[in-house]
């Protein structure tokens, strides 16, 4: 029982960041129809930014988190403006090839700048864990969970209550009509890619101090984000949120009670099964956003 409640708490803490990763990716796919191979690189970019600003430049940890988010948004915008804008109307495969090329450039640039040795980020949160009965959890994990939840809520709010969000939803439903109604599709694309990238970068910055920052940390994160997005249905934000938690629970329980080695396999097995039996994802009504 103690072990079970500990697993549940671990899964909850992990699920928040997974959801954050998934939402960014699903937004980009839903609105832009881009299978974004750079998502994982934005995640590791966030990790390196928090390392750069805290451990190297000595900036306050919390300020560094905001900087990582903002820089992630900027990098996303740059990728969209330089590469994706030219590819509007191109087929999905072509876009995918370009994004794979971009993934290679980003990852190896990171490796060139930072070297292959893993970086550790020290957080200012108390080292003594939070103890609730038989369960204990590091304060850092709690903090990460809270920030992730806030970012998810902020994204919801942005999509539901702002003019930009409205335009994004309109674009998602019918790009051509939205365009005719005066929505600037280019601007929407840039905003979407920047937002999604910012969320990935934030996830990396949040998990950097929990784990280690390495040039290849984004690879597995990207695959997991894909799994989450498929579980929830491509373009479905609520689905991605729930999908993030489902994946975290599947991994934690699988690792705890089946085999720790297959922890990372859980997500992939799940998406293969889901796609075989319910190809539109677990929560698909029709594909929709919001």
């Amino acid at each position: 029982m103690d072990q079970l409640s500990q697993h549940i708490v671990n899964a909850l803490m992990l699920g928040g960041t997974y959801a954050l990763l998934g939402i960014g990716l699903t937004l980009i796919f839903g609105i832009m129809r881009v299978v974004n191979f750079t998502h994982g690189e934005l995640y590791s970019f966030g990790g390196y930014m928090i390392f750069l600003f805290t451990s190297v430049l000595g900036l306050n940890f919390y300020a560094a988190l905001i900087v990582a988010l903002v820089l992630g948004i900027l990098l996303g915008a740059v990728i969209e403006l330089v590469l994706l804008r030219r590819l509007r109307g191109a087929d999905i495969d072509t876009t995918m090839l370009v994004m794979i090329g971009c993934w290679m450039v980003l990852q190896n640039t990171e490796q060139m700048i930072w070297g292959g040795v893993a970086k550790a980020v020290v957080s200012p949160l108390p080292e003594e864990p939070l103890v609730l009965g038989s369960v204990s959890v590091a304060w850092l994990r709690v903090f990460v969970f809270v920030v992730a939840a806030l970012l998810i809520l902020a994204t919801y709010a942005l999509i539901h209550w702002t003019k930009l969000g409205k335009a994004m939803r309109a674009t998602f439903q019918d790009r051509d009509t939205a365009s005719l109604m005066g929505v600037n599709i280019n601007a929407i694309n840039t905003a979407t890619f920047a937002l999604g990238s910012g969320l990935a970068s934030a996830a990396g910055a949040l998990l950097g101090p929990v784990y280690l920052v390495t040039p290849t940390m984004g690879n597995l994160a990207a695959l997991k984000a894909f799994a989450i997005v498929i579980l929830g249905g491509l373009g479905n934000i609520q689905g991605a949120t729930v999908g993030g938690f489902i994946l975290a629970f599947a991994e934690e329980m699988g690792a705890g009670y089946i085999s720790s080695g297959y922890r990372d396999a859980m997500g992939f097995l799940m998406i293969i099964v889901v796609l075989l039996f319910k190809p539109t994802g677990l929560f698909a009504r029709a594909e929709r956003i919001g």
Partner: protein
Amino acid sequence: MRRTLPYLWVGFLLSVPLWLHDQYFLHILITTGIFTITAMSLNLLLGFTGQLSLGHVAFFGVGAYTSALASLGFDVHIFGGFRIVHQPWPAVTGFAVGILVAGLCGYAIGKLSFKVREAYFVIVTISFAEVVRLVALNWVELTQGPLALNNIPPFTIGFPGLWEQTLWGKVPNYYAVLAVGAVAHILIRRLVLSRIGRAMVALKENEPLATSLGIDVTRFLVLAAVVSAGIAGAAGGLYAHYIRIIDPDIFLFIYTVTMVIMVVTGGKGTLAGPLVGGIIFGILPVMLRPMATPEAQWIIYGVFMILIVFFLPRGIVPAVQDWWQSKMGVTQAPVDGARTGGRL
């Protein structure tokens, strides 16, 4: 000219070990050859059927592991007290089994490509490769996991009792790769030049039309997937018995990406494309090595791939062919279907 070119090319490749004695360059040529074969097999899916299968490395790895395990033997416990003990087979038999198992995986993926499409298909194929990697990593009793499968025997060919030859060293392995490559090339060529293949290629962009014209899309797609996976599995077998050690990292996404780059830069949907791409990206890293670190090289390749997609979307081979034609004053306009047909 066009008729004699392939023969000249084959003659040249056959003669390489006669004048190139540098062991390291031979080693590079062997590994380049193996990856070129995988690129050829990927091209069958990517170029000729338009299925962006990004888990292709799984077939390569499955071929390598199956062949290695069949020729090393294993002793595995399944549930309860049930055990599977396998006595080592000759490497060549293992190689054949590897092709078979990889082909079966290809069959599954081929069938799958009708259930899930586009982005979903891409992600399922990537996930498939990742699951296989994790199994190879964690089923330690069978695969040795991160300890790697070591001391894989080299190939022995010939007839027992009459004449036998074990492929130690570079030169025999070079010819083995060349032979498998030639067989693979002929197979792919026959498949895409068959009636159904030509029709499929011509109508790649328009599957409903193809179906309505009575072309058995299902059959061609599955056949292409099986042949493609089998060839990738054969390349995996060659790799395992030449390098003589394999570990789960053989399933990493980066190897699929390498194959994709070879196909896309060379020219997807052309028979010569993956050969050109394979040779460029097999040899280039060695040439660039003194000047650029591996990271810098990968950055260059990434940029290169983006540029190719933007400026030469059909790849190098078709671009060179067009240029050649315009220079020769050939007026015949390239027809999509014929483009793949008449040329090597």
